[in-house]
């Protein structure tokens, strides 16, 4: 039996702020049937995550790492017959986890803050020259003054402001 003594009755509101209305979910399992990450171990079972949110099982949700297995294919988004937007739910749960436990905050965010990218585009000169390209691509890596403005912008976002220590200049 699911223990409901310690639940957060407003959890669904916190999470559905930026996704579909999960109250319409009727447990049909379509989102699981077509999900690549449902073959993971442990599996990503969107339907079960929606249940956890609706029941307010805050502690269980904060320990659940399966939303991070999502391959972002949006098959569930296409197929859900109730317009729940399961992929958006998955991202919304990740955001909620990131807000409530900073260890969930993806490292890719500080990489983008530092360089504008998730890859070290300034350090592949030889590889690019070998195929006849400019050594530095014309993205923000080529324009340090723009990168500074980009970081300025990010410093005004909640995620960077609230977790300043993660973001180096």
């Amino acid at each position: 039996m699911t223990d409901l003594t310690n639940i957060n009755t407003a959890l669904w509101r916190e999470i559905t702020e930026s996704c579909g209305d999960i109250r319409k979910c009727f447990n049909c399992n379509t989102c699981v049937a077509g999900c690549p990450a449902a073959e993971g171990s442990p599996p990503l079972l969107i339907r079960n995550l929606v249940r956890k949110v609706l029941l307010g099982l805050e502690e269980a949700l904060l320990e659940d790492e399966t939303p991070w297995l999502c391959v972002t294919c949006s098959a569930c988004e296409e197929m859900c017959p109730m317009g729940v937007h399961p992929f958006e739910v998955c991202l919304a749960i990740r955001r909620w986890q990131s807000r409530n436990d900073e260890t969930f905050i993806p490292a890719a965010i500080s990489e983008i803050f530092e360089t504008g990218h998730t890859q070290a585009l300034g350090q592949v000169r030889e590889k690019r020259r070998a195929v006849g390209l400019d050594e530095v691509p014309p993205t923000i890596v080529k324009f340090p003054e723009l990168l500074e403005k980009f970081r300025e912008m990010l410093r005004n976002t909640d995620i960077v402001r609230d977790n300043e220590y993660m973001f180096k200049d």
Partner: protein
Amino acid sequence: MKYGFFLGCNVPAVRPDVERAIRLTMPALGAELVDLEGSVCCPAFGAFPSADETAGLAVSAWNFSIAEEMGVDLVTECGSCYSSLRIARKKLLEDGEKREAVNRLLKPAGKSFSGTVAVRHIIDVLYNDVGTETIRGALKFPLEGVNATVQYPCHTLFPSEIVGFDSPPGRPRMLQELVEALGATVQTYSRELQCCGGAGGFTKGSFAGASEFAFKKLDAMKKETDAELIVVSCITCLEHMDRMQNEMNKKNGDSACAFPVFDYNQLLAVCMGFDPSQVASISTIPRDGLIARITRS
């Protein structure tokens, strides 16, 4: 035809030969590409969209503002970039409050989002703007007697309302027809529409499960087709289908799975006579044998 070429992070860093192939083939087919100077990560779904939605939309809007100033639509090969930008644009257009918040963030950098430019995937541009006739007419080495399979990028299929351009969404055909325009025969198989599984956190978070998922697809391809190569049009599909064959061979202790994997523009570039050492030089599963056959060298 003029487009802002959105590079993203992976193509220019991991597979710059794909970037080279795109930069050579598209203008030769009448699709002029201009650089989106100062562009950044789309951002990847696993980055800002997984932590702070407004920040994620601001990063997308940064990219849009560059294209808007130049008055060009964005074109990208990367499925994730395509989907991330399409979804962000829709949210920014539909949610006035979000749009205002994002524009407040952009303002000090002298930028703004107004939603005047679109995001296109390169398959869409190749099929609908360039056209298979133009492609047929540009080939130096048509693919005669070559069997291929295609890998549709999931991010260009679903959610079809936001990202779709092929129809019906459940039975896409544009990539297949583009490969057929090169002279190849495309063979379908039971798991053709299964996504590659390489995006997001699946491989990182559950390597065994993600590998098995990919092996099933590769096994089906081996059993049900006589394909000599796989054609993709997404950097993640390209890397993942290449890497997973290697993993499968490691597991089986053989080298039985060896489909060369090409991004469409790479294969197109080889068929148009561009230098393979620039347009198709980086891979795990060797492509040289097939390239030599195509170019009769």
